[in-house]
């Protein structure tokens, strides 16, 4: 909670007006929660991009609305390149909130020198933590990850008073021997078969016509 994000109250709503707002360099957002009325606001696009890059989940709003808020939801366009809308939930500094934190790997696994491949299985972990102690991401040191070893969710160091909301035995990262590429695919498809089976057609029926 370092930088203050300047927000402006907005009275306009609707698709066309929001489209115009976005083209003028601002992103629509809403602030709600704690039994108070929801407030429609807008934020400068460059501030939103900065906030997204930093990966902060807890932000300090300034300007027309001065509150601490949790970034509850970010709406993206179909290409994932522009933010369309933001949801902020009001919070108190000491209040516990549930957030999906990104898991970042740090270091080089010694298992890769023995021919292994680092497999990052869980990219996000849901954590309940007081808002003032919320980290931006969870860092996992893989400098001691040997071949065929795993790091589970329970082994990841969390901040004080933080609680893990996923099963502690879930594998976050592992170092495995790469499997040889096979000709058949794992996605349930078949390869090399003449034609797929038609559901509901009898085996002796030639072309599936009712006649």
């Amino acid at each position, binding site marked *: 909670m370092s930088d203050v994000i300047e927000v402006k109250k907005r009275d306009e709503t609707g698709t066309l007006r929001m489209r115009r707002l976005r083209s003028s360099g601002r992103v629509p957002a809403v602030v709600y929660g704690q039994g108070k009325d929801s407030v429609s606001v807008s934020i400068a696009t460059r501030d939103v991009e900065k906030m997204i890059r930093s990966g902060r989940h807890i932000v300090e709003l300034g300007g027309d609305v001065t509150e601490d808020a949790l970034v509850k939801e970010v709406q993206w366009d179909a290409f994932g390149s522009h933010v369309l809308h933001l949801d902020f939930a009001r919070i108190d500094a000491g209040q516990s909130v549930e957030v999906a934190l990104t898991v970042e790997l740090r270091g080089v696994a010694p298992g890769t020198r023995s021919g292994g491949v680092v497999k990052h299985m869980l990219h996000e972990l849901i954590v309940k933590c007081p808002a003032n102690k919320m980290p931006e991401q969870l860092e996992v040191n893989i400098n001691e990850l040997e071949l065929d070893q795993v790091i589970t969710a329970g082994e990841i160091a969390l901040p004080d008073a933080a609680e893990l909301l996923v099963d502690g035995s879930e594998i976050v990262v592992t170092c495995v021997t790469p499997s040889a590429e096979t000709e058949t695919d794992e996605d349930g*498809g078949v390869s090399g078969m003449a*034609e797929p*089976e038609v559901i509901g057609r009898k085996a002796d029926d030639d072309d599936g016509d009712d006649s």
Partner: protein
Amino acid sequence: MALMPKRVKHRKVQRGRIKGNATRGNKVVFGDYGLQSLEPGWLKAQTIEAGRIAATQYIRGEGKLYIRVFPHRSITSTPLETRMGKGKGEPEYWVATIRPGTILYELGGVSEQQAKICFARLAHKMPFKVRMVKRRAM
């Protein structure tokens, strides 16, 4: 070998239209980097396979390649020098319907530079414009 469904409800389907952008399958979910389509089109099963071979030859077991699209749609054609009529042709090949924004392939366990080179090789096989995207934090 090229992909195709195991079981289908109908052997032949109408051509249809590809309208709008992808609202599903447009996020990098399994790996760290993805190849995103920027145009609509049909992606043949053979092309998906050609892309897979191009990518696996480059990464050589270092990372993991995920194929995010599957050819569910059959495309029919009538043989050459056939007179008009006599009904719809026979299924010839299978395609995946791609809308702009769809993630086609994902890569995990490789550096950004390696992913960039790998996807550049893969992009040459694609019948439409594509770009590399990274996993989003939020």
